[in-house]
């Protein structure tokens, strides 16, 4: 008989990047519903405040940061730990989209997309996994990658490679952090109905939109679909899962 809820996040302290909108915002909502204290990171203070105020009451915090400026991360994490205690989990949801053909790519394009999508996530993991910040019982790190990190798409060399880097990095981190009882996993969604997706759709023809929709047998995803998967990976119910990439794509990659 189960006497405790293995899916509970009660009293877990979870840092979420990209928390002001889209997937990150929904992750914050779901995690707080499941009992977590969430530490929200994003650039827009107004949006962060609004998200924080909408959460189920607990010890929530928010900090405004541009994830490109990784040197600002550790002071924030230090303050969070001083306020709510050591960190149990992270969700790296901050990310930028880039659609540009290979022939138009310049070095700075790669640097910009890798800075937020990949390097910021690795830096967050590096800092939070320090003994002085990490919960003594270990924790769970979740990286929001993309099905584009597994499959290819024309015009997406920057974006695909940045998400592929996350998926590969997760495996290395999982092995390295197992001794600290930290599990590390990624989630690879297909197209989720967010502001970022809306912007992508704005710039393309109706035929292209229809083609994209057709490639998702179960239709487009919703932010809560990804948030529920994050909650699973952050909870004790996924105790034996690490170094994995959870494909969450409505059947996109099944063909």
């Amino acid at each position, binding site marked *: 008989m189960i006497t405790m809820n293995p899916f509970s996040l009660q009293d877990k302290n979870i840092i979420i990047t990209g928390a002001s909108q889209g997937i990150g915002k929904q992750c914050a909502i779901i995690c707080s519903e499941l009992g977590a204290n969430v530490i929200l990171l994003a650039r827009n203070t107004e949006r962060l405040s609004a998200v924080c105020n909408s959460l189920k009451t607990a010890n929530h915090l928010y900090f405004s940061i541009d994830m490109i400026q990784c040197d600002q991360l550790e002071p924030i994490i230090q303050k969070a730990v001083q306020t709510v205690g050591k960190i149990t989990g992270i969700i790296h949801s901050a990310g930028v989209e880039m659609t*540009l*053909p290979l022939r138009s790519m310049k070095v700075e394009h790669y640097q910009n997309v890798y800075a937020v999508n990949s390097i910021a996530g690795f830096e967050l993991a590096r800092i939070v996994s320090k003994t002085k910040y990490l919960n003594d019982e270990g924790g769970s790190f979740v990286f929001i990658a993309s099905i584009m990190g597994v499959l290819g798409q024309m015009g997406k060399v920057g974006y695909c490679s940045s998400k592929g880097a996350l998926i590969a990095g997760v495996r290395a981190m999982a092995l390295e952090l197992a001794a600290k009882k930290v599990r590390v996993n990624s989630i690879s969604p297909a197209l989720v109905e967010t502001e970022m997706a809306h912007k992508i759709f704005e*710039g*393309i*023809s109706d035929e292209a939109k229809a083609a994209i929709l057709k490639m998702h047998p179960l239709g487009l995803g919703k932010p809560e679909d990804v948030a529920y998967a994050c909650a699973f990976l952050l909870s004790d119910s996924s105790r034996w899962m690490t170094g994995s990439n959870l494909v969450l794509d409505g059947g996109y990659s099944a063909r």
Partner: protein
Amino acid sequence: MKTTEFIDILKESLEIDDSEVLEDTDLKSLDNYDSLAILSIIALIDEHFGKKIKGEQFKNISTVKSLMTLIGMDNFDE
């Protein structure tokens, strides 16, 4: 920017070496003019003119001249 200079940049972006491209050339007649080409053109317009053009605006683009008009003819010298 001179019109000839713009056409050279356009040709490089579309990887056209041999064909003559003039102001009245129909872009859709060019071999390499596809959705990726449009993305490349959007990128070069942003880089050289600081203007953000959306893909859907290319529905009405036919000739090089119409592309220049979209960018703004005040951006071009003779």
